[in-house]
């Protein structure tokens, strides 16, 4: 089967500093991958470079064998919750409907079927009762679920989520992980920037350890080894372990 995502020799920088160096990996369909690495390892930058939101200095990225521009609609992106202003005057259903804008077509109005689709996506995230709620009055976890519902409404084949579990409550974490597992079961591909090393093995079947370059990539059993984690996190982790042990 062809790769959903093929990344070859990608380099990117922030001002003078290299953010990504010779990043190369391949993602197969129907997988659930955690992107893990210390702060400043370039996890969010990697997503932005893949999605054409940050320039790459060199290298190649292809989705489903095509350039990002051609297959935008098949990719569902869930940005970090903090990237938008939640005071914006709109309600939860309206935000989820935004996931359908590509389908509705530019300069056209959403119809009843679109609202029904959005409503169904909200219900899948256990948020049906909050459809008319002003987004600033939602809790952090609920906001995150609205964001995921928006990507679900888009009905993509590849989902890319930037720290969806950061600062959410236990219920939301459960709902989000169940949803991602279900997507994987349906043959969709999911990539998640993840920060909690404790839960990697429970939640994900594959892992990409990143620290400016790919340290390890493979099934969780193969790649998420003590040695690889040390290599990705450097001395920080060893120091923590010595302190606690």
């Amino acid at each position, binding site marked *: 089967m062809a790769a959903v995502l093929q990344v070859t020799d990608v380099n990117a920088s922030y001002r003078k500093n290299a953010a990504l160096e010779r990043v190369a990996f391949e993602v197969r369909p129907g997988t659930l991958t955690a992107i893990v690495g210390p702060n400043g390892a370039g996890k969010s930058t990697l997503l932005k470079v893949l*999605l*054409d*939101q940050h320039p790459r200095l060199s290298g190649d990225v292809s989705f489903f064998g095509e350039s990002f521009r051609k297959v*935008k*609609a098949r*990719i569902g*992106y869930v*940005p970090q919750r903090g*990237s*938008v*202003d939640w005071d*914006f*005057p*709109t*309600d939860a259903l*309206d*935000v989820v409907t*935004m996931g359908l*804008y*590509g389908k*509705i077509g*530019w*300069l*056209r*109005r*959403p119809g009843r079927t679109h609202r029904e689709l959005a409503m169904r996506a909200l219900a899948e995230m256990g948020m049906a009762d909050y459809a008319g709620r*002003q987004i600033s009055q939602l809790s952090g976890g609920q906001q995150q679920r609205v964001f995921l519902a*928006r990507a679900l409404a*888009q009905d993509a084949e590849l989902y890319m989520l930037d720290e969806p579990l950061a600062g959410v409550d236990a219920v939301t974490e459960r709902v989000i992980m169940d949803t991602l597992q279900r997507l994987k079961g349906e043959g969709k591909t999911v990539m998640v920037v993840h920060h909690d090393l404790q839960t990697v093995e429970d939640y994900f079947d594959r892992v990409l350890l990143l620290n400016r370059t790919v340290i390890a990539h493979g099934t969780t059993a193969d790649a998420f080894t003590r040695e690889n984690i040390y290599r990705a996190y450097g001395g920080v982790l060893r120091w923590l372990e010595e302190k606690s042990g």
Partner: protein
Amino acid sequence: MIATLSHNAQWVLLSTLILGMAAGIVGSFAYWKRQSLMSDALSHAALPGVIVGFVLAGTKSLPIMIAGAAVSALLGALLIEWIRSSTRIKEDAAMGIVLSVFFGLGIMLLTFVNRSAGGSQSGLDSFIFGQAASMVSSDVRLMTATAAVVLLVAALGYKEWKLFLFDPAYAAGLGLSGRLMNGIYLALLVLVIVVGIQAVGVILMAALLIIPAVSARYWTHSFKWTVALSAVFGGGAGAAGTLLSAMGNGWPTGPFIVLVASATFVVSLFCGASKGLLVLYLGQWSHRRRLSRQPAAGQIAAREGAGQ
């Protein structure tokens, strides 16, 4: 009162009404883009262009002066963008720099022109505080056409504006070009500013863009109504301010428009139906009353204990 106005004054009134509506719409885009200061910077940046346009035309020709204003406002916008992206200076500082430098340059040029022969009769001063009464019917037509363009672009692309203003990164992911939307937004902003400065003046133009948008958010939770209300408030302030300034001879329009807009803001702040202080206070008061009617847990236990 309106019937007693001269024919020309009625036209002027209509045009400031329409201008206010257009400013209210574009202003709410700027507000939700968190760029309220941008409108202030660009309207100040328009001044040198007005004067240069006057000098080039040799007479007070509005189309040429407006073209000059547009060029210098866009130059200001480009400069802000350049400072922001290629230095470590933050956007608000960049806007502050551009605002003061361009305005200073404009005032300097204005002084020179006013001292030169015939300059003092040019009426250029009215571009600083605004003089709606000095407008003629061709100005009114220009303003109406501009406002119509703004209304059309806002209404047609309502859904796109909402997406772009709320979450530009996601919008780009869906294929809505941020560069294109940003370009249209800047073009609309400059357009409203340059046709508005004759009536409102470069110093206070920003108020007509910002205050209606800020007032509108106290009344509603929906983006559609925020924009619509902002247009209503802007239009109302434009028309009412013009009426008030017409009551005295040579009174500047800008300050009156701004005062009316500010009055709307104060009313919104206190009485706004969704975020107004009065509504918040009443909500808290009824909540407190409900709490005080319910006996506290300790009292219930004590009562049950006494009954046994």
